[in-house]
């Protein structure tokens, strides 16, 4: 496809889409053209590509121009997504940087912080991670125990964080630490921007059930953070974290598109055909159910985006998208096993460079549990939906209103 003179001067979303498509044709590989394993290789590829996309004016479309964005609207963002769906544009690498860290800096940052960090963040020069969860603070994130102590010109941070996506590749992170131990747990937290390459930061990749190392366990030993890198007001770290988790629930819950991944209906159908199983009534029913599942989550995501574009606040309904995505993944894993049978759990001649369909499905089968848990377990989401969407009363909270130091701790 060549870019036409009309498309060049067309300022509509359609014109934008045509220009985006033409640029993508010329500069980016087709989705699936090259199979890459996750990890270092993928990060290197996506980093180089993100800089190219940024320099061409197709990154950070809805972000303000003064901080490296394009200052465009939702129609252009959607136009880009439509055009980019067929291409191997960065998806995994920047989901936290761009889906969570950028938006929270944009929301809470000072002029100096935004000017210093955002252009490099959107261009992908700096990769960012989110540092909330701790070994002893999972669903109860507000019970975190990493401490930040006031020192001359800034803070010293000591403690540990876990489940940190891609931290081994990151230049910077957004961290929540406890700055006051004598107030109730939510009131003693503060959010900082931290240099992941600073002295005292030790990043340990964490191997999960698929064999991959997508997350990390990180130790902070007396790491210095200058005062100008404090992001939230003192003691307002929880509010900041909630705002950021909301971005996460949106970015995790609405991130999937139909055409991608070994779990996608089209791929599973192709595998079922290859195995000659599509005449079996149970397999046909499972395929139909898989289709309905996939339509549900992708249409819900489209609808929520349309509502957001129309100015309808999403609020806690992001948790509905998150729960729906997690439940769909869980059910899909069951359905795929019913559709493919033993081909799902055994194969011969597998090489990572091969067609990769069955091993890919297998990896997702073992890995789907991370989507039920990342960003809050399904039970956490149900609590949020029950209380903040339906308006049901909260569970009695035994740790409410008492100083953090007096809350019961497990072993």
């Amino acid at each position, binding site marked *: 496809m060549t870019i036409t003179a009309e498309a060049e001067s067309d300022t509509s979303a359609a014109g934008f889409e045509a220009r985006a498509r033409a640029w993508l044709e010329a500069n980016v590989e087709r989705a699936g053209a090259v199979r890459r394993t996750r990890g270092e290789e993928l990060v290197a590829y996506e980093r180089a590509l993100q800089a190219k996309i940024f320099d061409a004016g197709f990154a950070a479309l809805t972000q303000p121009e003064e901080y490296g964005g394009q200052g465009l609207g939702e129609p252009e963002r959607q136009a880009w997504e439509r055009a980019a769906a067929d291409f191997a544009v960065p998806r995994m690498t920047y989901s936290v940087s761009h889906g969570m860290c950028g938006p929270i800096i944009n929301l809470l940052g000072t002029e100096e912080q935004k000017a210093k960090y955002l252009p490099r963040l959107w261009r992908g020069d700096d990769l960012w991670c989110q540092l909330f969860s701790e070994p002893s603070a999972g669903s109860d994130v507000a019970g975190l125990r990493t401490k930040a102590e006031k020192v001359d010109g800034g803070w010293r941070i000591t403690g540990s964080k876990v489940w940190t996506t891609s931290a081994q590749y990151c230049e910077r992170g957004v961290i929540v630490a406890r700055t006051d131990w004598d107030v109730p747990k939510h009131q003693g937290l503060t959010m900082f921007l931290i240099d992941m390459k600073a002295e005292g930061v030790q990043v340990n990749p964490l191997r999960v059930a698929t064999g991959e190392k997508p997350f990390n366990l990180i130790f902070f030993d007396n790491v210095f953070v200058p005062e100008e890198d404090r992001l939230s007001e003192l003691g307002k770290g929880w509010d900041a974290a909630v705002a950021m988790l909301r971005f996460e629930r949106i970015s995790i819950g609405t991130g999937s598109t139909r055409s991608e991944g070994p779990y996608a209906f089209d791929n599973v159908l192709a595998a079922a055909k290859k195995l000659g199983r599509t005449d079996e009534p149970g397999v046909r029913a499972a395929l139909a159910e898989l289709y309905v599942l996939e339509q549900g989550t992708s249409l819900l995501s489209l609808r929520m985006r349309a509502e957001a574009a129309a100015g309808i606040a999403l609020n806690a309904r992001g948790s509905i998208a998150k729960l729906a995505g997690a439940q769909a993944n869980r059910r899909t894993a069951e359905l795929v096993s019913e559709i493919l049978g033993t081909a799902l759990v055994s194969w011969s001649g597998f090489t990572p460079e091969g067609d990769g369909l069955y091993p890919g499905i297998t990896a997702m089968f073992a890995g789907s549990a991370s989507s039920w848990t990342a960003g809050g377990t399904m039970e956490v989401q149900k609590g949020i939906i029950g209380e903040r969407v339906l308006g*049901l009363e909260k569970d009695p909270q035994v740790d409410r209103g008492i100083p953090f130091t007096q809350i019961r701790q497990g072993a």
Partner: protein
Amino acid sequence: MALTLTEEQLDFKSAVDDVLDSAGDTKRVREVQEAGAPFDDKLWKALVELGVPGILVSEDHDGLGLGLSEASIVLQALGAHISPTPYRGLAIATAVIAKSGDGALADEVLPKIADGSLLVVPAFAEGNGGWIPAAPSVTVSGGAVSGTKSFVLDGVAAQAFLVLATEGGTQGLYYVEAGDGVEVTKLDTLDRSTSAASVAFANAPARKVATADFGELLAYADAVASTVIAANLYGGFAKTLEIAVQYAKDRFQFGRPIGSFQGVKFPLAELAMEDELALSILRQATTAADEDPEDFVVAGLTALSKLQGIALEGAIRLVQTLGGIGFTWDHDAHLYQKQAATVRLVLGTPAERSERLAQALGI
């Protein structure tokens, strides 16, 4: 793709809700149902005045010239109120006649449908099978139809039927007026807001519906019917969730509202998720019908499959949230449960519908 309602659609929705709210609460619905009437005449008259029968009729034929998105608004409201009206059957038949391309039939019947003076419903199902029999035993010969159709939705008071029949080995749709040679027998139904009849034809005059591609028209009819029933089921589902959530806030046990217990809260949260998923799929179907005919068949079948999967669960969860009062005659829960249990089967079992979807997906 419009997955959100426009200003005009929101206005239309509030006009429909006003009519249904002022038609009386479920006490009135119970009176109509217990009297054994096929539908609520007074309510239907009010809906006719609003132009409801003409939603799917073009302005050229004196209708409102709207689409399935607006019909869906009405069907949802009817499900939410458990209101007995003939709109489900009428909406399906109207859409099929308008789509067929039979100009003479459209000129003759659509204006009458639009002004509320003519009730036409589809008569497809036979025996105890699905709603579209593979080989209809009802046959047409020499311009007359014979044989029996079962579970004809809203057929009790219908003045005409769109009959799926075989003529010389070829299937077609036929327009058959009630009268000599047409015997309508009202069926007893679990849900009294759903009226159905068995219709026996004995050499009744039948007029073939002219259409360029019968297979395409039949697939369209299935998608329209699926969308109509899905919308109706969704209305009931969303209402049962609303009632359950309200009760979970109002009812106290152990010194707490029962909705604060995770055992009550979590199932309701799951249904809230199902509500959002179902509404998204339903909007895709109605939007596709109005704007994207190529995707409509799959989208319509998908919507019904989704709603078949959750409608009964919603009604049962309401009963369970209510506890003892949930299975008393005086509470409305059983009316919703009967409606969901009945309506989800009117186009066939979930397994039959799932197979239809698989076929439409080219599996």
